[in-house]
């Protein structure tokens, strides 16, 4: 293996911290901090998935929260029917069914919306992805069977052999392992031939076309992969919060996901995870001081955009060089 750079040390250190600290909190009876860590890790997965297309593919998706919602509803809807009856085809607590639905529906949604969105460029792309996200938001708001805007309480979590998601520690371990898996997957994709084309198209699309790459399909493929991974994060989030609502898909949530990626550092492996961690911790700390925590939070966001190039990971990079 190559030399360890500062960035890879930070990545390793951060991942070890995430592996060790939350179980310690739990053992000390601080279930809440464990919850916080679980949320942070799950949103980390979503941010990593967004980073695949935003950071490495240059596709600024402003509707990624829709995939989280779809994944969560893929848990909630079958469980709802299993509890209250109806829709026998999918009414079940079976985790594999939930997982399969979450990933396939997200991928399908990504395929359809991506096929249309990727015809556009720049701001149009940002806004059309947002429009599709809002479409999903309003679609679930319109579904009276699933309580529309009021959301759905998941009474029974996805059932798997061997693991029990009702156990916070097991749910955390599953989420953490998933995060590591997703990070490795993204690393693999990015470094593959496919990934080279994807990054090439981000840097200079015209050049890639001239070389004979139909970049549209490369981008669409990446978009579908990203959507499916984000749907998986939604599957975990649904099982974690046991409450899902269309609010999970609102455009502001997509904005927060984007913020996490940029905050941590786009097109880095650990950046999105660092971003989601800092985001959630800062939110938690600020909101415990004042109900007006959005004010310093907003200032922080403006400051980030104005002064920190390359996000937090960028800081380590410049020191490493």
């Amino acid at each position, binding site marked *: 293996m190559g030399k360890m750079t500062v960035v890879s040390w930070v990545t390793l250190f951060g991942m070890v911290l995430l592996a060790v600290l939350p179980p310690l909190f739990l053992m000390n009876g601080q279930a809440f901090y464990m919850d916080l860590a679980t949320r942070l890790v799950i949103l980390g997965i979503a941010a990593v998935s967004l980073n695949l297309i935003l950071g490495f593919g240059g596709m600024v998706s402003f509707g990624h929260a829709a995939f989280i919602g779809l994944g969560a509803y893929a848990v909630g809807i079958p469980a709802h029917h299993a509890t209250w009856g109806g829709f026998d085809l999918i009414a079940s607590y079976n985790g594999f069914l939930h997982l399969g639905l979450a990933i396939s529906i997200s991928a399908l949604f990504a395929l359809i919306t991506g096929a249309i969105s990727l015809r556009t460029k720049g701001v149009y792309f940002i806004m059309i992805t947002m429009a599709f996200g809002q479409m999903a938001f309003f*679609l679930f708001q319109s579904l009276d069977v699933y309580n529309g805007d009021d959301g759905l309480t998941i009474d029974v979590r996805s059932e798997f052999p061997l693991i029990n998601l009702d156990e916070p520690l097991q749910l955390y371990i599953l989420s953490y392992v998933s995060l590591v898996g997703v990070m490795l997957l993204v690393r693999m994709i990015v470094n593959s031939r496919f990934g080279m084309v994807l990054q090439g198209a981000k840097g200079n699309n015209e050049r890639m076309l001239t070389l004979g790459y139909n970049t549209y399909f490369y981008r669409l493929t990446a978009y579908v992969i990203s959507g499916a991974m984000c749907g998986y994060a939604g599957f975990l989030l649904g099982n974690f919060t046991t409450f899902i609502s269309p609010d999970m898909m609102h455009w502001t949530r997509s904005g927060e996901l984007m913020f996490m990626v940029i905050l941590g550092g786009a097109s880095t492996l650990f950046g999105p995870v660092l971003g989601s961690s800092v985001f959630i911790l800062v939110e938690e700390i600020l909101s415990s001081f004042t109900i007006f925590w959005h004010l310093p939070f907003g200032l922080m966001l403006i400051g980030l955009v104005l002064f920190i190039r390359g996000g937090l990971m960028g800081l380590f990079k410049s020191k490493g060089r």
Partner: protein
Amino acid sequence: MDYTLLFVQVLNGLQLGLLLFLVASGLTLVFGILDFVNLAHGSIYMIGAFIGASLTLLLGNFLLAVLIAVPLTGVLGYLIERFVARQLYDKDHLDHVLGTFGLILVLDTSAHIIWGPAGITVPLPAWLDGQVALFTGVVFPTFRLLIISVGLAVAAGLFWLVNYTKLGMLIRAGASNRTMVSALGIDIQTLFALVFALGAMLAGLAGMLIAPITTASIGMGGQIIITAFVVIIIGGIGSMKGAFIGAIIIGLIDTLGRSFLDQLFELFMSESAAETAAPAVSAMMIYILMAIILAVKPQGLFPPKVR
């Protein structure tokens, strides 16, 4: 079909559309000329509403308050341009989105701190507070007619400004050729600041006009900004004509959807399901329209000729 109702709903849709146009026109100017994505445009709309409402209560005269409040929002727009937007011009759209997303949080929370969460009910003079009988059986709130008239007047003014004035020429030149404007020896920074302030005034005016109907309240900006973006994306970024037509289409779709969709849905679903589905689906329709238009014309209905 009840044609009287249809007529009234078309008027309502027109009123909503023209209000949207006031917000969207400023957005499309800033977007088209400065190439700047301003998500915080809706917050300016909200603050305009609050300034107008406070002044109305203070002065006891709605129209006078609006006359003073519009330039005040212009100043606010100038300050935002000077201290935030200007620093962001040479960054990419992603940074614009994030930076102005932060600005929304700052402005909305500030409004909460300054004016409280309750919102302000704006009193109108009696002659605006009533109704007008347009013809037999059709009465329409006077104030909504005022919004329609102001919207049309502003639209006419903007078309004149953009097409027949020197500033308009500069605006059009700035939209298509930044270096040319600089080469003409015009201070592009001043031009940008002016355009930004103009956009802020239009948004503020829209806020002031809607406040007597819906009250001035925190959070009102976040609702309109996305719709306004849909308008200018449908119309083609930077196109005033596009913004106008897009706004009217969306105003009509939203209002007519809310009016008639539930009856349509009741044809094939239960009454209660239709009642829940109709408002959400009519909210969804504008996004479906946008997706269809972009699928066919990726640059909107009236894309600017040169970029």
